[in-house]
């Protein structure tokens, strides 16, 4: 990390600006007001922006701690999807002969595991994030929403690493890159927002009902088979497709494959995914705000 080693500092300049740039620095006649809040109080996006450095530091801490004591370190971010791909290829691709829309099964399943692993890890990390940071919540103030956001953000780095491996796999299997790949950033953002929506809501609920944290891994396991991760969505009978598409991950994972393999996008499914994600996100923001004021008392 560059800032840890850089020692250059223009002292006179910083002493003048350091205090003024602080999150809580306001003009003296504009005080910080503390009052019982209203349930519908608007979410203060400005305070989130002023604390953006803390988002970065919490992400950095999580990544650092996650890989510091493991022998292989960051290599785990690569090994995890590769090993999973290997297992699914052997058991589902070779033995069970699950169809894969004429794409070699290893990259078919890897392309599905990319968004899925990101979603599952981000969901679990953010769902447990508030409880996991109880010592911060009960001792220091900052917008609580930073906690689930940085948990999702940290998993984005893992995603970037496993994606770089995918580029190698695509070259190996001779898959041509098409213009469709330009949709990828939007799809990644959609997965991140969806993981944030469910993760944020879960993290708040987890403070009060700890069984939520216990139930998460079970839910995740079920959810994987309810999404087109290891099999193509064309396997689902047409009359059930509509129900299948309610799961926002259906549209997103299919979208990932379309972007990576140059197939036709299913715009209807993507629109459904986006719509459901935005509605859930709005609800999660509201629910989180309603519950966050009790965090310190319950945690």
């Amino acid at each position, binding site marked *: 990390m560059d*800032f840890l080693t850089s*020692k250059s500092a223009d002292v006179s300049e910083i002493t003048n600006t350091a205090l003024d740039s602080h999150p809580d620095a306001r003009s003296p006649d504009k005080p910080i*007001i*503390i009052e*019982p809040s209203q349930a519908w109080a608007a979410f203060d996006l400005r305070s989130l922006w002023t604390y953006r450095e*803390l988002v970065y530091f919490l992400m950095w801490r999580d990544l650092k701690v996650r890989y510091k004591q493991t022998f292989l370190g960051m290599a785990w971010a690569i090994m995890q999807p590769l090993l999973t791909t290997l297992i699914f290829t052997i058991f589902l691709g070779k033995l069970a002969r699950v169809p894969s829309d004429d794409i070699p099964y290893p990259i078919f399943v890897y392309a599905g595991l990319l968004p899925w692993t990101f979603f599952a890890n981000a969901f679990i990390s953010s769902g447990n994030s508030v409880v996991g940071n109880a010592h911060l*919540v009960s*001792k220091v103030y900052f917008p609580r929403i930073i906690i689930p956001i940085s948990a999702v953000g940290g998993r984005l780095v893992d995603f970037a690493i496993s994606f770089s491996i995918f580029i190698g796999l695509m070259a190996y299997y001779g898959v041509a890159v098409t213009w469709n790949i330009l949709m990828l950033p939007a799809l990644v953002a959609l997965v991140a927002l969806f993981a944030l929506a469910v993760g944020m809501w879960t993290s708040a609920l987890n403070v009060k009902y700890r069984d939520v944290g216990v139930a998460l891994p079970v839910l995740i396991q079920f959810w994987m088979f309810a999404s087109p991760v290891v099999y193509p969505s064309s396997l689902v009978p047409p009359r059930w497709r509509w129900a299948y598409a309610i799961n926002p991950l259906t549209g997103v994972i299919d979208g990932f494959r379309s972007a990576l393999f140059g197939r036709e996008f299913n715009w209807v499914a993507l629109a459904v995914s986006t719509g459901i994600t935005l509605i859930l996100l709005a609800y999660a923001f509201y629910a989180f705000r309603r519950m966050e004021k009790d965090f310190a008392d319950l945690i």
Partner: protein
Amino acid sequence: MKLTIKVENLSKQYHLGASHASLMTLREALAGAFSAPLRRLRDNSRTAAREVVWALQDVSFEVRPGEVVGIIGRNGAGKSTLLKVLSRITEPTAGRVELYGRIGSLLEVGTGFHPELTGRENIFLNGAILGMKRREIELKFDEIVAFAETEKFLDTPVKRYSSGMYMRLAFAVAAHLEPEILLVDEVLAVGDAAFQKKCLGKMGEVARQGRTVLFVSHNMGAVLQLCSRAMVLTGGRCVLDGDVSTAVSAYLSEARSTDNAATFDTEPDKDVQIISMSVSSLDGESLSTHPYTEPFCVRISYRVKHWKVGSYVCVDVFNEADMRLLWSSDVTSVDDMMVERPAGVYEARVIVPGMVLAPGRYYFTAAIYAPGRSAFDARDRAVSVEITDSGSLLSNFGIKPHAATMIPLSWETTKEKEVGRRA
């Protein structure tokens, strides 16, 4: 006049047994979340039935820049709740606070320190958590390291630090926060004497720079040394706000009991609860005065609902000047740590030997701690005894002891050298 803190009718309510909510099933939780408006209706009716506790009640005060205000009171008087509300960790139930300037709250030393990260990394992480900008931390980095005296270990994970080094580093970061308003909660209770002195010095410095400090402490010495003004909280209300020496003596006379026995209301929620304390002679006879030469007994009865292995009972002895003279616990060996106490009522007796406490009045605090240092129950200065001078030789000569303890030590005198009348 300019103000930095303005608190108006601040109240904070807690629901007793709020933690029981965690026993609700996931099904109820999910159902409730999807029918939020309905649930709120139900919650209201339930709230009425539940018992509530006012941790803060109608507290109002104003603080001007540069004032150092001590907040004192017994355990559970609302001191920590007040600081938590002011630092925006928890919301008030009613009332309003206006804060003018940047707030730094030090409710704990080393909040957010991660054992796996190095000293250098933790300075940045902890600084960011306390609200410092990265540039600001970079600028003060050398100063922080110098203050903490940990240059050599900057790239060592803090889990390998000694506890003294850890505390110094953690306090060093917080001390360089430079807020206009500093809220400090009992952080000086940890660390060695040199460290405490350093912390007190730093806080005095902060105050001299014209910043406002709110300081919660049980250490009356530190409060007297540091603060110009103090508030006494009792049961969530501010009962006195004024000159520090007036407040401290009011607190001490309120806080200490001059009874030699006390019984406490049953609190069924507590896993372990102290139900009574008394001072008595060795044969169980109740005492309010006791001769200096004779041993006596402090009895602590407690009720156990759920015992945790490793818990211990301890007693503190304070003198009239509120100095902690003695501390003792019922754990004296490894076997004691392993004791399992099934539900029931127990009595712990500790014998204070004669010829230790000099004549004067002494106050006894009893506490039961669970492993990990969270108290099951604590009773602060709940009983006391007057030690009388029972004809020590000194008293025959009319000499009063001027030390806190007076213990017979062995003396020996030998003649070293023969000296002539005219040396």
